[in-house]
């Protein structure tokens, strides 16, 4: 199964902001994740768009440590 393509399609969201942030991360940071972190990223993508937006724009800090780490990585990958 083409795992990367499946995850990339899951990054197609209802909001442009998320498309850009998640798309950029899948293009650049994702391949550096180990299998456990990839599974974590897959789980992150199950959250509703509004929750992801608050986390990824830095408005709300997620409570789970694993999620915080991922959110920081995604934010760092957002190229100006």
């Amino acid at each position, binding site marked *: 199964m083409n795992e990367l*393509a499946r995850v*990339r399609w899951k990054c197609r969201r*209802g909001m*442009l902001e998320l498309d850009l942030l998640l798309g950029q991360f899948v293009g650049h940071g994702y391949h550096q994740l180990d299998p456990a972190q990839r599974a974590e990223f897959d789980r992150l993508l199950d959250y509703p*768009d509004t929750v992801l937006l608050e986390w990824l*724009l830095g408005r709300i800090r997620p409570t789970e440590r694993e999620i915080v780490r991922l959110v920081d990585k995604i934010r760092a990958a957002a190229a*100006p």
Partner: protein
Amino acid sequence: MEKRSFDTLIIGAGGGGLRAALQLAQAEARVAVVSKVFPTRSHTVAAQGGVNAALANVLPDNWHWHMFDTVKGSDYLGDQDAIEYMCRAAPRAVYELEHFGVPFSRLDTGKIYQRAFGGQSRDFGGDQAVRTCAAADRTGHAILHSLYQQNIRARTHFFDEYFAIELLQNQAGYFLGAVAMNIASGEPLLIEAKTTILATGGVGQLFRTNTNALVNTGDGMAMALRAGIPLQDMEFFQFHPTGVAGKGMLITEGARGEGGYLLNGDGERFMERYAPNAKDLASRDVVSRAIATEVREGRGVGANRDHVLLKLDHLGADIVSKRLPGIRDMVRTFLHIDPADTPIPVYPTAHYTMGGIPTDRHGQVVVPVQQGAEEPVPGLYAVGECACVSVHGANRLGGNSLLDILVFGRAAANHVIEHLKQQRYHQPIPADALEPALQRLARWNRQGKGESIAGLRAQLTKTMEDHCGVFRNEEVLQEGQNAVLALRERLREATIDDHSQVFNTARIEAMELENLMDVALATVSSALARRESRGAHSRIDYPERDDQQWLRHSLFNLDPMKMDYKPVRMQPLTVDSFPPKKRTY
């Protein structure tokens, strides 16, 4: 090819599609919803504003005032029967949502909270009205999730992550369903249906700088075009003057309201030249055109001189944080700059598609028949941003798009339910009806070297931005039409490297680009043909509205390529018509 049968097929799982699906499922129809992404990731989720309804919870209000505002906002291009229907149906649409579980914000009295929005008045153009119902700043999200849950309960069948390829019709022009592709497996699926509802949303992805999600590629509009249905009023596209340059996200007018202003590459506050009084707070189209003009004339900012700057740093970090927190978060995240220190690169951003698939107020797709009046296309409906009812005419009012999807999603479903009583059986699908879909699928299996999809898409969206954006005249639009036609030819020769079956997103993106090309051609051709300025369509060579010649709807046909026109429905259902007047606020 595997086949499944339903009473109704709905393509698109945003608010319009899900509202229709729910109504049908509750009436015990067998309904299938096809969505290329998981339903709650549809673009409805991004709608923050709210839903207009004359509930009069805050100030006196009634549907007739709402109707007046909508007709005026449409610059008199909206169909007044559909507008009356929508405004009368609005309170019920809101109460239904409440019943479905949407957590509307409340007043202290316990009634639904309403907020003031631009373009809303009391007493036919008088003082500001307070008409927009909201669930905090996530109304679209709340509506989409509630409707999805209700549909699961009502046993609507969802085909998640299926991409619709082409509609099916027989010789008599009756629509019979569609062929879709399971994105996960690459397998095609024939979905047979007595009625098909298109609900695929708008097409903001036509423009390089836009506010829309990536999914908004006009798939339903393009399928309709290729099935011989014209697109209506496609020249009317709503732009916001200040989007983040090169990315598209909206920066609210509030930023200029708080004292922010625009600078060109020479550091000049150029709005003083275009609007000496209102300056940076001039109307949206004036500011948008001024920015595009500065860039066209070489006074842009940046390595490519392709944007201008929005300066907020003189306001101080305190004001920026307190009054514009959302903008500060967004700009920090995406640009790694703090707008309290550094000006923001901005350019006009495409936001909403007023045009679309022509329908009547029952959601039935309608086409002109020879020289006569228009007639419904048997078995085909369209609702929401992909449709043109037309309630938005030449310009949409804030708070009316969520209302549109709810009212006409429901109305279309009710019409389908009546239709299904007569249409008891599926009609046979002729073998040749599948041909267009099969050809389209096979086309992307072609081997060999060709231009890349991403490269062609970038050229298309840049062409549309430069030639069919906020700066329009005959020459610019003609060049744009020629360029789109040439790009469309080049796409025929393009190839993709990936021919695998499982999650082949390259193939989906190629087909999305085909859809964008067809809708781009409709948009630039309609804009070239309309020699006046009305609502969102603003021509510098024809700056005035011309009701004598142009108080009519455009219809673009793809094959053969030609423009056609039909009258605006000026007669409401029960009240007097609002005759065209100069639109001033």
